[in-house]
């Protein structure tokens, strides 16, 4: 019982991030409104980015900017003092892709509204089925 509690406490961080991802996934699948689906897509994207950033964290380490670095001094830099910068770089690209996808998705939503006068998925499917 004690080891079960210790397992839960050490992994609780990851489980909360996975719960956030599932909130986003549920909004994408189960909601009828198109704008709610887009909000769910963005929640899923930011939750995945949070998951990645949490992998690169290190205890007792500082942010990945080297102090007194540009003066040409060469005191040794230990990799264990700095937080892993590689997930940060990949997630910067992921945020850019997320905002691009958001822009195009909202443009599609406006076009759909101009065509069908509604944003609910079941009403659009009905109008499509009538044609």
């Amino acid at each position: 019982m004690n080891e079960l509690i210790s397992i839960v406490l050490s992994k609780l961080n990851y489980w909360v991030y996975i719960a956030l991802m599932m909130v986003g996934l549920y909004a994408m699948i189960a909601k009828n409104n198109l704008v709610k689906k887009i909000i769910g897509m963005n929640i899923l994207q930011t939750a995945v980015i949070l998951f990645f950033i949490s992998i690169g964290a290190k205890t007792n380490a500082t942010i990945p900017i080297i102090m007194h670095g540009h003066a040409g001094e060469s005191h040794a830099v230990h990799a264990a003092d700095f937080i892993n910068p590689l997930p940060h770089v990949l997630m910067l690209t992921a945020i850019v892709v997320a905002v691009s996808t958001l822009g195009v998705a909202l443009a599609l939503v406006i076009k759909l509204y101009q065509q069908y006068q509604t944003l609910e998925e079941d009403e659009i499917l009905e109008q499509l089925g009538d044609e």
Partner: protein
Amino acid sequence: MIWQIELIVLLIVLICGIGAIMVKDLLGAAILFGAYSFMMCLLWAIMGAVDVAFTEASVGAGVSTVLFVAAVFRTSRRTKD
């Protein structure tokens, strides 16, 4: 960092995320999404990812919320679901 701060911010993130998909007013959902994005930025700054937090603050809590509000302005505001 202090784990109590991290826990509180994580709880606010979860509540904002669930709230953004549950409200029936699309403008309210857009504003809650902006708040969710800003709390995410705080969480990343706590974990030491300062570049990513800067980007999310300017993109998510800035431009992304404005684009949502512009799209809701051009379409309808109520939703049944």
